[in-house]
């Protein structure tokens, strides 16, 4: 469990972070959340699926990294092997929290004190000696800002998909080279037939809202399942 501590330049003036170790947070993830602004980068290697949040049942978009809990096929030799490191991993060990639970936009930047990326010496500093944000910390903040904006964009996308009834249950059975079978459960995808049957006005409204490209990227990315199967087969030695 992440232990979040609010960052300030007095208590954490000498805190340093080894960003290379941030990758460790993704070592055992078979799904990693994805925001709309990174769909294109994600789709180069990872299948993007829609699934439901365990606590809320709300739809979320995630990149698939493995076929079962704990399996990340892009994690080998203690390193992330993918071309693109998802924002959700890159943001480690930083988080934003909204302690007042208000919509005021007053966010507090926190770090996870349990994160392996937190070091006391040989990492990158967050603050200069006089307490000003370093370039590293500024980048980390912009990463968090991209995530926050992305969550809003995702919400808009998923609401439209639900409203237009463009989601369908994804049913897929995968057989690996060693004849082992797995059924993918709990995933949803775009219903391409319904999408194709949408009226010109609805298509246009999706386009104007900046969602159409994201929808097609979601569809295209599913081809990467074959890439994932290939990685699994290689891991199995087949």
């Amino acid at each position, binding site marked *: 469990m992440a232990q979040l501590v609010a960052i300030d330049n007095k208590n954490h003036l000498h805190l340093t972070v080894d960003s290379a170790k941030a990758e460790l947070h993704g070592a055992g993830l078979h799904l990693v959340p994805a925001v709309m602004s990174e769909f294109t980068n994600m789709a180069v290697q990872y299948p993007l699926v829609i699934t439901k949040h365990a606590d809320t*049942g709300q739809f979320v978009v995630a990149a698939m990294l493995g076929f079962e809990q704990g399996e990340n096929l892009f994690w080998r030799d203690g390193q992330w092997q993918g071309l693109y490191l998802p924002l959700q991993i890159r943001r480690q060990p930083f988080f934003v929290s909204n302690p007042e639970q208000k919509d005021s936009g007053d966010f507090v930047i926190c770090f996870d004190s349990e994160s392996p990326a937190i070091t006391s010496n040989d990492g990158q500093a967050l603050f200069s000696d006089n307490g000003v944000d370093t370039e590293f910390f500024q980048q980390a903040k912009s990463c968090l800002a991209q995530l926050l904006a992305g969550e809003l964009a995702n919400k808009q996308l998923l609401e439209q998909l639900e409203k237009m009834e463009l*989601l*369908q249950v994804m049913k897929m059975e995968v057989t690996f080279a060693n004849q082992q079978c797995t059924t993918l459960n709990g995933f*949803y995808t775009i219903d391409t037939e319904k999408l194709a049957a949408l009226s010109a006005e609805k298509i246009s409204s999706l386009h104007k809202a900046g969602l159409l490209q994201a929808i097609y990227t979601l569809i295209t990315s599913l081809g990467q399942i074959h890439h994932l199967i290939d990685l699994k087969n290689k891991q199995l030695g087949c």
Partner: protein
Amino acid sequence: MNKLTKTVVVVGGGIAGWLTAGRLAAKHKSNTEQGLKVILIESANIPAVGVGEGTWPTMRSTLKALGISETDFIRECEASFKQGAKFAKWFDGTEDDFYYHPLVLPQAFGKTDLAAHWLAKQTQAKQENNHQYSFSNEVCFQEAICEQGLAPKTIRHAEFADVANYAYHLDSAKFAVFLQKHCQDKLGVTHIIDDVIGVNSGVNSANNYTEETDTDDTVNKGDILSVSTQNHGDIAGELFVDCTGFSSLLLGKHYKIPFKKCDDILFIDTALAVQVPYDSEDSPIASHTISTGQEAGWIWDIGLQHRCGVGYVYSSKHSTEAEARAVLAEYVGDKFSSLNVRKIPIVSGHREKFWQNNCVAVGLAAGFLEPLEASALVMVELAAQMISEQLPASREVMDVVAKRFNETALYRWDRIIDFLKLHYILSERTEPFWTDNRDSKTIPQSLQNLMLEWKYRAPADHDFTSNNEVFPAASYQYVLYGMGFKSDYCHTPYALDDCDFAASQFIQNKKLTDKALSLLPSNRELLDKIKTFGFSRI
């Protein structure tokens, strides 16, 4: 003579009226120009009886057929999940006396008779002085879910999807309002608020019809042409649905179809009902109906989101009202003194016919039994479904449909009466109410015949030959073996042939139980999440 069915007039609001109007309107597209016209006339002066806060899983298909979102329904009707019934103190009245009638069928039901194998295990456990496990717990994973107060699904499940089969508990007053709004706004039902003051038929009525007086051959003899209202004139239609509750305005008063009482079989004739608030906002909500045997009847306890509905149904021949109030007060506890007690008479029975001429009765106008096993709403749903699916296209076929409807409904009432009676006849309680219930003169012959067969084997689907069964054989098994009945298989040992398969199924049930217990949230937790997030459609 052969008028097309273009307009259906439903007389009476309430859940029966709105469900019937809704099923008709949804199926026959009343919200389009060409669709069937459905008019519902509701009196502003007659309050709904508002009985029936328990449903069957059929309510899920009913809501779906009406195009209702499960999330909206749960949010607006204070609904909660119901996974069957727990019968406490029905067998001998001791504190640990209880059994479940869950909604999930026994494991591998239809593939093997686990009842036979369970009975064999019981005998063995008894000989070895081992702990004996209840039938419903050994063959079904739902009892464990209920005992832990868990919901039948998670927030990740789609609307109407489940882990364990479920029905609902609902606030019937809110449900009637909810249905009304949906029927009017979405389904195109025409709502007239007015009092029906007269019934106009081609000739006076079916009863005093004489061929000589019938001169108008465009009208089928004795059919209702219209009903007269106080302020809206005569409302005409080709089919009239009587949903006027106990007063049974059309079928009972107009057509004088006799009422067949069954108080010689089911003794309960009075209900005392209260609405009990929860102790706090996060008090657990039971995900099953709790039915607790008492000296002259039983108490229902139904947990909704905002309160519990509790009531004592008893036989006034076996208890005075003062005694009954004391029993209910004892059950409810300290809160009782501040609660408003509603007394509702129950006349157990049903009309001899339900569809006469061009008039069909649904709901209390057709009949009513004590609320054991929540038969009231399911009978409404089944009738509404049958009327909408088999709606006679013209007067020519109406009598054919009516005959089938009457046969089916009569069969269903008889089976329900048998099944309710079954709950009483195996008890070993000693109060007069219970001993009178076991008098064979009060047990229908059809039930006695089945009990004779079940001495040698478990209830099976082939015991019930209609394709319109209300209760599956599994329900009879749950009640029989829950009440300690022992079928003796020594003359039918073939039932135990597949013991390896049966053993694997007992293990499978344990696995399913463990999985469900680890996966499911509490009933209250899920209901709170539905209020915040809702279910998605898929």
